[in-house]
């Protein structure tokens, strides 16, 4: 059978073109994403301190030093604080966004007048830069000129609200601003889920005598599982990547009260000349996100097939 080799030039070209067209993008992704990931992993095992890969003695080197960067990383109180801050922030951020998003979506789904306008208002923060959001909230929450000052000038002289300057509470202001920015998005995800539920099921449940409360608790919310899953995955990955907001809102302070892994990585890599440690913290961040995203993407792509 010599048949298969007889393809004419045009056909062979047409067979190769698709792969040819895909290859620049693929090459970019392989080099700039996966190659760079491997390189960062490599750097995390070396004694490099600053670019261009210079070590403590000022020599250009990328000498392997085993796990000592990771050991140092986990002995740093700065890193430990940023991990705890992340736990507090992520827990509250994901929890509040989910509840608020679901609540807004359910209420918006009650044939509300001006639903479109309300949705537009709830969602516009998503179009803003975190730097803008951070700036607005930074000054609004500032005790000197913001809410506290306003309340006092309105006559409530004992009013105090200095969370943003308070080591114990500053992290909650980050939660507040982040929730403000993304809860509308979560609302949209849940609203799409609600609109996707078959109305006949709801009618059947009502014929069965289900109250509104039971309708939501037993029929509707269980059917929103995919939306819950998406919301969780998106929110947790946003939480881990949170960087700009902290920079603009608190700069990581007061003290280290709002340091997160992303800000930790940035300052160790670029301002403290501890690139090896910075790289190892980036690897930890990547592994955390990968643990959440890979199973999710895998399931999504499998379903599509």
């Amino acid at each position, binding site marked *: 059978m010599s048949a298969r080799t007889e393809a004419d030039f045009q056909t062979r070209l047409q067979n190769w073109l698709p792969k040819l067209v895909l290859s620049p993008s693929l090459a970019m992704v392989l080099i700039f994403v996966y190659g760079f990931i491997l390189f960062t992993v490599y750097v995390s095992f070396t004694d490099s301190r600053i670019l261009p890969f210079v070590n403590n003695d000022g020599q250009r080197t990328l000498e392997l030093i085993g796990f000592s960067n990771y050991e140092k990383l986990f002995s740093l109180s700065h890193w430990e604080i940023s991990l705890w801050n992340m736990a507090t922030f992520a827990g509250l951020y994901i929890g509040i966004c989910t509840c608020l998003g679901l609540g807004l979506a359910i209420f918006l789904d009650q*044939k509300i007048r001006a639903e479109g306008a309300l949705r537009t208002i709830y969602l516009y923060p998503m179009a803003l830069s975190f730097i803008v959001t951070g700036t607005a909230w930074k000054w609004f929450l500032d005790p000197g000129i913001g809410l506290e000052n306003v309340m006092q000038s309105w006559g409530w002289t004992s009013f105090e609200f200095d969370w943003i300057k308070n080591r114990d509470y500053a992290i909650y202001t980050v939660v507040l601003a982040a929730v403000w920015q993304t809860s509308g998005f979560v609302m949209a995800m849940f609203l*799409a889920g609600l609109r996707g539920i078959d109305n006949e099921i*709801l009618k059947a449940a009502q014929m069965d005598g289900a109250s509104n409360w039971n309708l939501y608790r037993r029929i509707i919310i269980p059917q929103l599982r995919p939306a819950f899953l998406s919301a969780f995955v998106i929110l947790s990955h946003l939480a881990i990547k949170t960087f700009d907001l902290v920079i603009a809102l608190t700069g990581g302070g007061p003290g280290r009260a709002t340091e997160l892994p992303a800000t930790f990585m940035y300052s160790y890599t670029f301002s403290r000349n501890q690139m090896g440690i910075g790289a190892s913290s*980036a690897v930890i961040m990547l592994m955390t996100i990968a643990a959440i*995203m890979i199973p999710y993407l895998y399931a999504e792509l499998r379903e599509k097939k």
Partner: protein
Amino acid sequence: MSVAMQDTAIRTGRAVRVLIYLFLLLFALFYLLPLYVMLVNSVKPLSEITGGGMMALPEVWTIEPWLKAWSTAQIGVEPTGLKPYFWNSISMVVPAVAISTILGALNGYVLTKWRFRYDTILFGLMLFACFIPFQIVLIPMAAVLGFLGLAGTASGLVLVHVVYGIGFSTLYFRNYYAVFPTELVRAAQIDGASFFKIFWRILLPSSGPIAVVCIIWQFTNIWNDFLFGASFASGDGAPMTVALNNLVQSSTGVKEYNVHFAGAILAALPTLLVYIVAGRYFVRGLMAGSVKG
């Protein structure tokens, strides 16, 4: 927006409805509050803000803060205002959006209409790239940009944004073309149209909506980026977000809150305008980027 109003079977009592409206309006105020704060305080003299009047409408209206933020505020070494940085952002965003959208469209076309072995795996690799914490690529990227002589330039940032933007643009076009009838492609093949002719004459004319979604998404993301801008272009080549942050965080002199607010609005204006004009497409992009597959 993307989700159409549907006739719900759920009925609620009058009192409950009043409570629902109250709740919804309360949160509308919550979401509008920072915008209100930014707007009113950008048009009043500094003294009114420091005097406890942040929530009040201006007693004296002034556009001075806007002018100052735009052209004379001290950001870098020179008192240039945000203007040059605004143009930095524009010259970074336009090519980055164009290139990543075109590549995404071609990738989506190949991945859906010219399927080959491992295409799903390749797409998975591209998709995962959207979600990595970019800290993981900062160090080698800084080294490579330095090596290429692109550090601190708009071209460098264009490269960065294209590389990390094609995942999403490919996702959009792939999902859109996945439901585009493959029979049309086959008919065109029989009609003798080549690979690019099929794309140009058959798919592209029907790709308007998804192109808008993709362009808006890329525009918003790239305009709003801070991490890459701060890492690779912190000096005169900095984009708007970095410049705004420098303006607000600068510790020299009196804090001119009204100028900061005006600057924040200037930085937000392009994406906000896009949102107001084409919010429907923005939300579609948002949803397609979250509920993948």
